[in-house]
């Protein structure tokens, strides 16, 4: 066996190919050292073989951890996944001694909730599965394994409740998972892009999460979860716009407060999208829209500004976007400095220098702050982009343009589908007897 393995692999010193001999028999052992747990190899193979307290052949035959391997083609991939191959009396056994390096016991970092589970998925897929199985102890939970990447061969697990899952969505996901054609797959985000297929999408149609509670409640709603090995994020699909606007705490805290928070979230989303465009259209096109006092105070604050309103908007938005970008990229210790410098000094100074009006500074900060209210980061990013096309249309058409732009956004959102499910749809109460609109497929 060892001779053939030597031929299968490139010259590498970390491949261990050993011949062991005791009074009973002689075996050949092959493994890749860094991928395997040393202790497991010595406990299960080397030590019992040398001590000879018990017949090693009998051990190989009785312990189910040693699997008989008949397919020679599997050798390479098993060795690369941290298995040990043993040849004894002409039979090849494989023994799993994989060593997984990951961050132990991780806390939620991206989506934190004040009350509610604090533990996040682990980079070790078995720990993640343990968490999910523990929170969803149902015999209907089905786990499928796929492998993606012609080179990386990353194991990918699809989890769903076999009774509740929508069969058409499941078929759709299975075909997509089997037809994905890439060399390397590292992260859940990469898989999301591959699954969606459309390269130029604006809104996320798959939810990426690290929270096991979000995952289990999604499974109970008939959704499909995809776990990627070596990744502490899972994909939830199909996801709707409203899933992205939903924080897990909405289910944990008091009813009226959470309703209020949801209202706040939608209002601030609307504000962050429209406010710069509305500023342009009110200042440059329809100052009579507001009541006289307000119109005067806006005009007064702009009296020192020497250029049209949209240039002002571009200056301020450029500053705030660079500030946000900088504070994300900077190390955590310097990050707060950047915000202080940017927020306090630039804001004040720009207004006093007459570069921008003070109302514009308020607009900018409202835009920036209300953007962060959106609970899921990927949607927050998408929304951050939305204000720019609206600014463009407001420059030429004023308020009419803003309204038409919003209509186009709603059209786009409504025409999106997440794995065949409508992305933006206001669900009223569905009576199961009545059936749903668009339920019947015309043949």
């Amino acid at each position, binding site marked *: 066996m060892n001779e053939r393995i030597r031929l299968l692999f490139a010259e590498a010193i970390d491949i261990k190919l050993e011949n062991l001999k005791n009074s009973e028999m002689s075996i050949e052992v092959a493994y890749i050292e860094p991928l395997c747990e040393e202790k497991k190899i010595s406990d299960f193979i080397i030590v019992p073989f040398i001590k000879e307290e018990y017949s090693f052949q009998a051990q190989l035959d009785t312990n189910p951890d040693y699997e008989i391997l008949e397919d020679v083609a599997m050798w390479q991939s098993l060795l690369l996944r941290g298995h040990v191959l043993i040849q004894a009396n002409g039979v090849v056994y494989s023994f799993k001694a994989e060593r997984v390096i990951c961050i132990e016991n991780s806390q939620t970092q991206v989506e934190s909730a004040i009350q509610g589970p604090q533990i996040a998925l682990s980079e070790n897929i078995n720990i993640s599965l343990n968490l999910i199985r523990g929170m969803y102890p149902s015999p209907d939970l089905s786990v499928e394994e796929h492998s993606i990447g012609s080179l990386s061969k990353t194991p990918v697990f699809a989890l769903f409740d076999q009774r509740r899952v929508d069969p058409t969505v499941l078929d759709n996901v299975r075909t997509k998972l089997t037809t994905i054609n890439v060399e390397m797959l590292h992260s859940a985000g990469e898989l999301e892009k591959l699954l969606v297929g459309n390269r130029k999408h604006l809104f996320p149609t798959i939810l990426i999460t690290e929270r096991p509670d979000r995952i289990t409640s999604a499974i109970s709603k008939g959704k499909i979860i995809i776990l990627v090995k070596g990744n502490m994020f899972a994909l939830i699909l199909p996801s709707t716009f409203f899933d992205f606007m939903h924080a897990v705490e909405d289910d944990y805290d008091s009813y009226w407060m959470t309703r209020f928070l949801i209202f706040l979230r939608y209002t601030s989303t609307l504000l962050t999208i429209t406010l710069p465009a509305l500023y342009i259209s009110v200042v440059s096109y*329809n100052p009579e829209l*507001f009541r006289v006092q307000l119109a005067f105070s806006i005009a007064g604050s702009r009296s020192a500004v020497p250029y049209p309103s949209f240039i002002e908007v571009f200056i301020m938005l450029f500053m705030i976007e660079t500030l946000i970008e900088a504070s994300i990229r900077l190390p955590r210790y310097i990050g707060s400095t950047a915000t202080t410098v940017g927020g306090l000094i630039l804001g004040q100074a720009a207004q006093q220098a007459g570069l921008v009006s003070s109302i514009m500074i308020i607009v900018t900060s409202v835009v920036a702050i209300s953007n962060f209210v959106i609970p899921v980061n990927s949607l927050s990013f998408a929304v951050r982009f939305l204000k720019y096309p609206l600014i463009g249309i407001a420059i030429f058409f004023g308020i*009419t343009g803003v309204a038409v732009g919003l209509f186009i956004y709603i059209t786009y959102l409504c025409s999106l589908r997440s794995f065949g499910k409508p992305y933006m749809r206001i669900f009223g109460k569905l009576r199961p007897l*009545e059936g749903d*609109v668009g339920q*019947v497929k*015309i043949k």
Partner: protein
Amino acid sequence: MNRYFYYNFVLVSFINLLLYVPHILIQYRYTGAVSSILVGIVIGTILVYMYTSAMARYPGKGLPEILKLHSPQWLVTISMLFFSVMWWFATTIVVVAYAILINRFFNPDADANIILTMLVIACGYAATRSTLSVMFIVEIGMIVNAPIIIFILFKAVRSNQLNWDAIHVVANYITEMPTLTCIAASTFIFTGYINLSLFNRLFPPNFRFKFRFIYPIAGAVILLITFFVPIGFHGTEGVNQYIYIWSQTANSLLMQYGFIERVLFLFLIVFLNLTLVYTMSGWHQAMEFVKSCFPSYRPEFDSLKTPMSNYVIVGIFALLSILYLMLTNEKMNMLITTYWLIVRFFVEILIVVWVFVLSKRRSKAV
């Protein structure tokens, strides 16, 4: 799923404000408008009941499929082309009128053609989406805008400025004989049911129309408000001086505590949204009717990819709309609208009776 049916109804009944319906009725306020409104309510209700009960027998089928079941292809093709022209006209009148309205009130410096081009591009993009998406957009449009319209109507009815005497005076002309123009105009309020011709495709087999009595009541209330409130604001004579009668009425209202003081702006923005939604819905239906003329056509309400034919057909609609604005002016537009309302009235009766007779024959055969 009854709500999806009512969105169409409410949408059309609100959009009448932009179709010069109040203006046409007010022109005839001494010569038969009031009695025509009453007759219109009765006729509208009868048509609603006939059409909904006929359509309920064909679950998941639109008008083209129903006609194809019973009639030869050439007849279906001709009538579908004719209907699509009717539907295109219904929406184009509105969107063109609104482009001029924006030009008057919002952007007086801009060119109406350019504004119309922008509106038409937005509506065209929306109309090429799948039927299911269009339905969702109608839903969101109604949920967002209907409360504001109801607020404006409520504010108008409750206003101190409203002169009830003028309303009494006009209401006393109820004894005048109704006229065809006024009946055609007043039945337009009820015409949302005709959108069922296409959207019936979406409804599942076990779907039943419920609460149909809301139809005449809500329609009558909206119709009476649209007719009488402007008279109460501007007086029996002064009311005839305005074409955009409801924009002027909204302009007479004041929101004392809002940071937008004049109701006009709220009114215009909300009706811009409604115009977009209405145009999208009308063009989408006209587009599907045109597509149904081809023998190879398979009805599909939620296709993954937008077919090329959608873009071509809607593109033609859009170009024709821009041409329409170039060739007509407001006065002609109003005249055309008046005639269109009458033609529409008879075409709708034709469609309803046709489908109703077909459904009766079918149920006998079964």
